[in-house]
């Protein structure tokens, strides 16, 4: 971690994952310039921490998927720069954490793994491809329901799945993202977790997550292939997904391996537009 971070940990003192979260926050502050935002004190006196969060990038450490720390950040309108969820890391590294509140061998091993990963992440981000332009001037059709307007690009090279994700085919690559339906339902998107560059993705596999104060949405890839690039801008500006989900808000670029096979389970504009309208009506009455 090269920058100075304001660290907002989980305050789950009654759960092991919460205790791990607090321990990592403390270790990140040892001998460094990082500072902890106390979630309890933040509730009653926010001036100090608002200032800290405004001056430095914020690292959120959630204990579990209840995401209390992330929700607090959303409530306080703090922009999250980096994020870790302890239970997810434990799963990813196949570490079983115990049910009591003591930090034993497994918990300490997980803490070291996470600390090492946090220190490496910035190196990884530096090798991501330079971001090509995301402006295509697509022609859009719109559907209005109440105050909400849903746009869908009408382009023969854009394919959709029924999970409200799109793929724009450009030669043997595809850019992938979410539709207006997703971003409207999530409302303000606060965080984008990109997939690993070089990862092999099956059709309908997960290629990243986006998160709002309401929920977490897995990007379900319409296409199979290899992740060759991510939209790095979204890591700092996830709101672009709300503002322009089909162009500046593209999320992942995939080198295609079986686009003709993938197309069997994809739909074009006309069908997706009808499905989306029905979903909007069913959900909102």
């Amino acid at each position, binding site marked *: 971690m090269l920058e100075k971070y304001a660290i907002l940990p989980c305050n789950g003192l009654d759960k092991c994952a919460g205790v791990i979260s607090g321990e990592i926050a403390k270790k990140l502050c040892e001998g460094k310039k990082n500072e902890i935002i106390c979630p309890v004190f933040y509730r009653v006196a926010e001036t100090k921490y608002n200032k800290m969060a405004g001056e430095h990038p914020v690292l959120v450490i959630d204990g579990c*998927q*209840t995401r209390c720390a992330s929700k607090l950040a959303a409530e306080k309108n703090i922009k999250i720069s980096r994020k870790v969820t302890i239970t997810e890391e434990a799963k990813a590294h196949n570490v079983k954490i115990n049910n009591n509140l003591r930090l034993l061998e497994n918990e300490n091993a997980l803490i070291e793994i996470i600390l090492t990963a946090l220190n490496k992440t910035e190196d990884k981000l530096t090798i991501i491809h330079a971001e090509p332009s995301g402006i295509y001037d697509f022609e859009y059709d719109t559907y209005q329901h109440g105050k909400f307007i849903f746009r869908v690009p009408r382009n023969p090279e854009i394919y959709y799945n029924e*999970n409200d994700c799109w793929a724009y085919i450009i030669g043997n690559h595809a850019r992938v993202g979410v539709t207006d339906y997703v971003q409207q339902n999530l409302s303000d998107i606060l965080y984008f977790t990109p997939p690993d560059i070089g990862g092999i993705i*099956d059709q309908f596999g*997960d290629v990243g997550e986006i998160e709002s104060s309401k*929920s977490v949405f*897995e990007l379900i890839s319409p296409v199979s292939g290899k992740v060759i690039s991510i939209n790095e801008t979204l890591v700092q500006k996830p709101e672009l997904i709300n503002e322009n989900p089909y162009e500046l808000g593209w999320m992942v670029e995939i080198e295609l391996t079986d686009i003709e096979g993938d197309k069997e389970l994809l739909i074009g504009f006309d069908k997706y537009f*009808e*499905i989306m309208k*029905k979903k909007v009506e069913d959900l909102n009455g």
Partner: protein
Amino acid sequence: MSETTFMGVERNKIDWKPTIDYIKCDFCMECTNFCPHKVFEVRESEEIKLIVKNPDNCVVFCRACSKICGPDALSFPDKNATTQKIKEIRKEESNA
């Protein structure tokens, strides 16, 4: 269409639904509060206070409820196996 079919396959032929691990579940009800598709049902007066009532309402490949489950008590079938199964059904039906 999306109400009863998914990718042209009747929804009830696709095995995609959450499974609740009752050892982990603490009945916080975050999942049922979140899910707009009424997949879960709360049974306050019973020992098992939460069940998967409407599995076919679950959006195929969606795992959003498991993503917000603090105790990590919800699991789903394998996506790849589900995709293959959908392809098989489509093939069978197109040959029928």
